[in-house]
């Protein structure tokens, strides 16, 4: 049960759109919709006799009731506990005994479950996965033990890491109204307060075939899969789903700096987060240009930011940018920098701001755009190399409101981006004082001790 925190989401997004879709016809997905509304996507890949079988629910931390943060993720843990037919954790035992590997993940917008397994075991995992879509037992004692596991997970991911704690607090401020500001793993006090009834209600509300997408990548075809899908998933009755809340972020009028000083920070770092359109929220025509912009600024060591700040000016040890525009809600664009040895955080961050100012004035060049487009399109071919990677591309896109065409036509759409569009998007997003700066710093009094280290010389 892994949990994708925001940073991981950005990594996944980078994979989705830097390491992913394809020249039309490359993935060649085969699709169907069951009578109960469950979507089926099969991406044949015959290089090994295995399949990755995933069920994606369009429910993430954004869908949690107020005061119940972490419930989507908590439920994901409990999904491994049992059903009347396969009680007491038999799900995992059976998958393992059949040579399968499995896991699950919870994100802002979706929750996914997957098994990778020999193709002749597909029938088995489909039976198991469909069983827990409807028949989960949520039991008091197991829930209490699992709550402690989740709290330990929170300590591992967040509490033990100053960078994660800063990010959690920053997100809570960055979003004024949208539930993207809530930590996926949940605030500790709310994790402690979630009840069995809350969990059951959340499960009953969202775990329905008409809220799910089946994605299978591997050594199969839709023709082979569809009868199984109908047999196992097709018999589950569709249920009415809540009307999705249309969260709108109010206009932000203030800039903000959030800063964490901590004894466990040795090296400072800086980041700045801007609001940005996403593929389906706000001015979405800027989404593809923003993907190209992110590649120009940050795609590799010859990108603009690394070249300027790390190589030429030597003020930074790392520098880059990210764009996240793949969620159901608002997007964001970010910049980050960490100083080189002997340089201050202010020197590094001021150099970053100056570089952005220069770009706003001068714009990126035709050549910058052309190079970025080639790299992004090349990445589509690399994406065909991984079973689970392909399945994730489709699952995350579909549960976040995008379409199969969006994936299949991605290379052409990226290829159509012009330098004027990139510069327009650049100025739209970055030419503003309304943004949030994050600063992670050592304690003011901290003195870096250099222990004499005689043993190293012996």
């Amino acid at each position, binding site marked *: 049960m892994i949990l994708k925190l925001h940073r991981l989401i950005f990594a996944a997004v980078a994979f989705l759109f830097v390491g992913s879709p394809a020249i039309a016809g490359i993935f060649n997905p085969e699709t169907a919709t069951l009578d109960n509304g469950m979507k089926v996507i099969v991406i044949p890949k*015959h*290089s*090994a*006799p*295995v399949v990755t079988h995933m069920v994606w629910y369009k429910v993430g931390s954004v869908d949690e009731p107020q005061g119940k943060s972490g419930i989507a993720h908590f439920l994901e*843990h*409990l*999904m*491994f506990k*049992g059903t009347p037919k396969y009680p*007491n*954790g*038999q799900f*995992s*035992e*059976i*998958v*393992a*005994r*059949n*040579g*399968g*590997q499995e*896991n699950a993940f919870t994100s802002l917008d979706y929750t996914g479950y997957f098994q990778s397994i*020999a193709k002749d*075991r597909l029938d088995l995992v489909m039976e198991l996965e469909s069983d827990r879509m409807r028949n989960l037992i949520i039991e008091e004692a197991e829930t209490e*033990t*699992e709550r*402690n*596991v*989740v709290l*330990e997970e929170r*300590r*591992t991911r967040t*509490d*033990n890491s100053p960078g994660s704690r800063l990010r959690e607090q920053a997100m809570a401020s960055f979003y004024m109204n949208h539930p993207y500001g809530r930590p996926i793993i949940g605030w500790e006090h709310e994790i402690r307060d979630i009840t069995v009834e809350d969990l059951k209600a959340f499960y009953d509300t969202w775990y329905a075939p008409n809220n799910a997408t089946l994605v299978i990548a591997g050594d199969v075809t839709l023709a082979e899969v569809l009868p199984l899908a109908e047999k196992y998933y097709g018999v589950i009755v569709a249920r009415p789903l809540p009307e999705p809340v249309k969260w709108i972020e109010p206009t932000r009028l203030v800039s903000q700096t959030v800063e964490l000083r901590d004894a*466990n920070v*040795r*090296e400072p770092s800086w980041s700045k987060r801007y609001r940005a359109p996403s593929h389906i929220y706000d001015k979405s025509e800027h989404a593809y240009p923003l993907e190209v912009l992110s590649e120009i600024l940050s795609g*590799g060591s*010859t990108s603009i930011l690394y*070249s300027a700040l790390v*190589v030429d000016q*030597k003020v930074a*040890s*790392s520098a880059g940018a990210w764009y996240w525009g793949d969620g159901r809600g608002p997007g964001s664009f970010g910049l980050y920098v960490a100083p080189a*040895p002997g340089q201050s955080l202010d020197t590094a961050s001021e150099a970053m701001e100056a570089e952005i100012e220069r770009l706003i004035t001068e714009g990126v060049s035709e050549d910058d755009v052309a*190079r970025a487009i080639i*790299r992004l399109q*090349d*990445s589509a*071919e*690399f994406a065909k*190399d991984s*079973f689970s990677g392909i399945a994730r591309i489709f699952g995350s896109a579909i549960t976040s409101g995008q379409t199969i065409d969006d994936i299949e036509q991605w290379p052409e759409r990226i290829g159509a981006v012009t330098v004027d569009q990139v510069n327009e998007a650049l100025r739209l997003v970055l030419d503003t004082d309304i943004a949030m700066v994050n600063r992670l710093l050592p304690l003011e009094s901290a003195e870096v001790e*250099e222990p004499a*280290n*005689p043993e*190293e*010389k012996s």
Partner: protein
Amino acid sequence: MRTHALSNGPSNALAMAGLVVVSLAVLMATVSNARAVDIQEVTSPGGIKAWLVEDDTADLVSMSFSFRGGSALDPIGKEGLADLVASTLDEGAGDVDSESFRRRLEDQSISISFSNGRDNFSGSFKSLNRYLDEGIDLLSLALNSPRFDEEPFERVRGQILIGLSRDKTNPNAQGGKALFKTLFDNHTYSRPAGGTEESVKAITRDDLRQFVAENLTRDRLYVGVVGKITAEALAPLLDKAFASLPESGKPFEIPAVENIAGGELIVLDQDIPQSVALFAQPGIDRDDPDFYAAYVMTHILGGGGFSSRLTEEVREKRGLAYSTYSYLAGYDAADLLIGGVSTRNDAIATSLDVIREVWTNMATEGATAEEVNDAKTYLTGSYPLRFTTTSQIARTLAAIQYQGLGIDYIDQRNSFIEAVTLEDVNRLAKTLLDPDALTVVIVGKPEGVTPTGPAPVTGG
């Protein structure tokens, strides 16, 4: 870090839910074997050997290669040398300076990267076929005539120094260094593979050149290639990349570790809410006849894939941790059984007590027939999942050669596991597992534990 191609690292320690051992005979069909991966041994006109698996799923080629000899060879006081070489080898070569070199790679989506373990120095290469010739040219340049110019050298060294500084408050990094320092005393394995701030500062560009000249040689090279390429097309590329390397390098021998420190408990004080514990005891040699019994046993104890005993006792029954695991880690001169757990400070002592009990119980009572069966069907049935990306397969091909396992190893491997019996596992558990031999390093503010000695100085 090289581990056995077989080891169950924490990375595949899947977090599972509860395990109650109930037999489901209906579903206990024997898992079919991996479709044999068709490996060709290619020898180039210049005498470079490589194993090739053709795969035309995508129009690309992945290559993985490994030279015997890694950070264990770093000169005393220059720890981190191999690491620094790995990070600067792709920063300019021949008459191509760093910026141009990186630009040619990135503009053609060619990826070349290097990494080092304690015992080897590895590279990985991936390119779309339309850029393949250019990619191999650049790889050849990097291996045969790296420039190590001052600008990239100082830049990369600065990045490494920042990383080492960050590691000082990274409990896993600190714990790992302290564990190796404690286990291996004054052996070369006790030294941090990434070096210390002091040792990295002492490294010169000449040291890098010397490392390359002495260690990146043909007699130490193992190559695996996977992708849309034929043996005929590959052969000349192998020559271009590797044939000009020196035939042999400076001889070396890593002395076998004579004594692995057991029973130590070290605490590294850090103000964090959750203690991070790493533990280890002696493992088993890859060539030992009982290796596969140990592999199955370790999987039952703390492997990934389904609820291991550690996960069952620590996580499922008691909610003491999100993750706990064990795996066999093999090095050329030592073998370990390593584990880990992270638990809030006031309960880490309980987690460690439970883990020692699991250890004792496995040693004295052994595993059940059902556990052994389940472990075997998992380990054999999941083997094909390791052959699902070209880079993953290429890495496996290079590792099998490095370990001297033979070209039929992939076909035979499952039969080695199937041959393991309950008696093998239990006999092995009795001789291998020793809770008193566990050396534990805890980073945090653990309550209720008594260190056996002061924290070792590992630098940083």
